[in-house]
């Protein structure tokens, strides 16, 4: 139900689907006015804004425009009022929340304070105890100092006595014992040395020297956990494992081969043997077949590159070295040797093609990985000379 007309003239009761509207004679106070519905009757209790008799309940003789205007006004005013009310509600809600929050904060503060106080009490108690102890320590220190000085005089006196005795007796043993007792405390002031003598018990002699040789825990890779480039190393291991597993599915041609000839490892070994005996073409064939079976093994390419070098197939050598290098990523200590070889072989190929600059690049890369290799160094030097030579000429 909606009761309208703040300050204005209309009274509206809407209970859908019914609507009662009356433009009243004079303004009413709508906050206090009520309309009760029940038993088929609507009971209005309207409070007049201004006391006085009305000529009639509704405004008669009002023109349509006036009525319209009044109605609209009334509606508008009603809206505004509603808005204001919601605003007011919001504000009160906020305030309630704030109040609740403050109350909680106060409680927590109180709790915190209580704990702080407990701690403070502890602190003070403990500080007092500590101060007592400190004073005690100071006292003890002072006592010690006094004692020391007293002893000092005593001991100096005693020693003088002993010396006198010694001189009289010329007994060597006592001199020696005096000396050995002096050894333990070297380089310190004379007085404390003497106090040591008289007080210390017999200490065992210094231990006879010994050495214990130790080994450190080895790892798959020689780096500690904190230094390890674990991710890269894992990648490399993974690749290697994969490489061993891949076998290309070109079965038709391979049916003719014997079992062992299908094994890339066996083929690699064969190739190596043939390389060693100088049969480079055969070695290349072996490697080719191995690569067809498993094209992820860097060593196959590496070795084939060496063969091509010997056969003066320089472009192929370069190709194979490059492929090998590609497969030898990520660069980890484990594949250092292989990478050095790849760079060197490619470098050689470049030089034989008279592409000295590229060759030098590869040699320097190899040197970076293995700076201690003298042959690589020498070769790099030679290339540099050649480059300088050609530059001077041209």
């Amino acid at each position: 139900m909606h009761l309208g007309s703040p300050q204005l003239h209309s009274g509206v009761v809407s209970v859908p689907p019914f609507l009662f509207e009356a433009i009243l004679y004079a303004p009413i106070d709508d906050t206090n006015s009520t309309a009760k519905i029940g038993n088929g009757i609507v009971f209005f209790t309207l409070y007049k804004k201004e006391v006085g008799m009305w000529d009639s309940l509704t405004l008669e003789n009002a023109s349509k425009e006036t009525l319209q205007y009044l109605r609209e006004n009334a509606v508008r005013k009603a809206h505004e009022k509603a808005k204001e009310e919601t605003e007011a509600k919001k504000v009160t809600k906020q305030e309630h929340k704030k109040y609740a929050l403050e109350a909680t904060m106060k409680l927590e503060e109180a709790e915190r304070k209580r704990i702080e106080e407990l701690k403070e009490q502890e602190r003070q108690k403990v500080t007092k105890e500590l101060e007592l102890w400190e004073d005690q320590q100071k006292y003890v220190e002072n006592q010690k100092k006094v004692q020391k000085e007293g002893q000092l005089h005593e001991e100096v006196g005693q020693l003088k006595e002993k010396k006198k005795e010694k001189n009289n007796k010329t007994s060597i043993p006592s001199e020696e014992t005096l000396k050995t007792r002096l050894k333990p405390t070297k380089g310190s002031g004379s007085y404390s040395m003497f106090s040591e003598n008289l007080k210390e018990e017999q200490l065992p002699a210094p231990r006879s020297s010994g050495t214990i040789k130790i080994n450190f825990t080895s790892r798959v890779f020689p780096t500690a956990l904190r230094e390890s480039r674990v991710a890269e190393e894992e990648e490399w291991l993974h690749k290697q494992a994969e490489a061993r597993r891949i076998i290309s599915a070109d079965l038709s041609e391979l049916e003719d081969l014997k079992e062992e000839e299908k094994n890339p490892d066996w083929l690699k070994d064969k190739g190596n043997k043939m390389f060693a005996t100088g049969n480079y073409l055969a070695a290349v064939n072996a490697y080719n077949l191995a690569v067809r079976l498993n094209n992820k093994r860097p060593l196959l390419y590496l070795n084939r590159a060496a063969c091509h070098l010997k056969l003066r197939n320089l472009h192929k050598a370069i190709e194979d070295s490059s492929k090998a290098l590609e497969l030898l990523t990520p660069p980890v200590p484990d594949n250092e040797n292989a990478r050095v070889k790849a760079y060197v072989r490619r470098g050689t190929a470049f030089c034989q093609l008279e592409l000295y600059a590229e060759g030098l690049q590869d040699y320097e890369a190899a040197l970076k990985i293995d700076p201690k290799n003298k042959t690589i160094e020498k070769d790099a030097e030679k290339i540099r000379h050649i480059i300088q030579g050609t530059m001077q000429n041209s």
Partner: protein
Amino acid sequence: MAAAAGPERPQVVAHVQQALSYTLFDCKWVPRSARLLCLGSAARGTGVVQLYELRAGRLELLREIEKAKPIKCGTFGAASLQQRYLATGDFGGSLNVWNLEAPEIPVYSVKGHKEIINSIDGVGGLGIGEGAPEIVTGSRDGTVKVWDPRQKDTPVANMEPVQGESKRDCWTVAFGNAYTQEERVVCAGYDNGDIKLFDLKTMSLRWETNIKNGVCSVEFDRKDVNMNKLVATSLEGKFHVFDMRTQHPTKGFASVSEKAHKSTIWQVRHLPQNRDIFMTSGGAGSLHLWKYEYPAQRSKKDSEGAEMGVAGSVSLLQNVTLSTQPISSLDWSPDKKGLCVCGAFDQTVRVLIVTKLNKV
């Protein structure tokens, strides 16, 4: 923030805090006194030794000594109670023993290592432990050497890598098992996670293991008893407590491990007055106080009838965060229960009091 629950738990009370003008590497209590030493490196690359006295809620500087090389670590462990000589290891690999009353010339000096001495420990002094006073140093050059201040220039024991073996930094050393005149062991922790136990009586390697992460600190719960427990802390927030009473022929010593601090655990120190309580300091500036509980049976027989140890459990008593920088050094006072000093990389030394340790 200190855990507030349970007013019966030990509380860590920050007593005094002192800002320093140099990098602090080690702090130690002077035995039988209310004095403490701070060792470190000044900005101009020289070593600093400062002697403070705890007086009425403040640290008063009694003495400041400057040395040529920055000092990394120090110990009173091998000194007698009267003399209280300080043994230090510096960045240049030299071991020096100083008389603090006359610090210009060291009482004993040797350039024992080729690289920085990371850690030092002493035994046989201070009325603790039997046998000759000895100092052990562990260095970045991978060697661990034991020195007797009565023998010049050469160590009495040298634990070095085999020829050709690549070396690993030794980060920490500790003496233990010094309960008779002859018995003694040295435990060393390395940066690759190796922990090695050397028996000095038989001059041999008694046990080794690897805890995967670099070992920052090892300590026996007591140096002067039959070895009981060993705590080893490491990078990545882990520490292990080994029960050293029972050594299995293949499995070695039983251990329990805990994760804490969420960062490197720099130091572990046992309470001198109660060997089952220890404190660990972390890379995030926090201190954790732990208690070890023994199992019902410390050893049991395995399937072949060999004795093997049973590790107990560790419970956290208290934790507190004091700084944002790592707390790199920690020392309990041997004279006052609960008093400890810690030094952090924020160039501050703090004196703390841990309360209610009697009730633990």
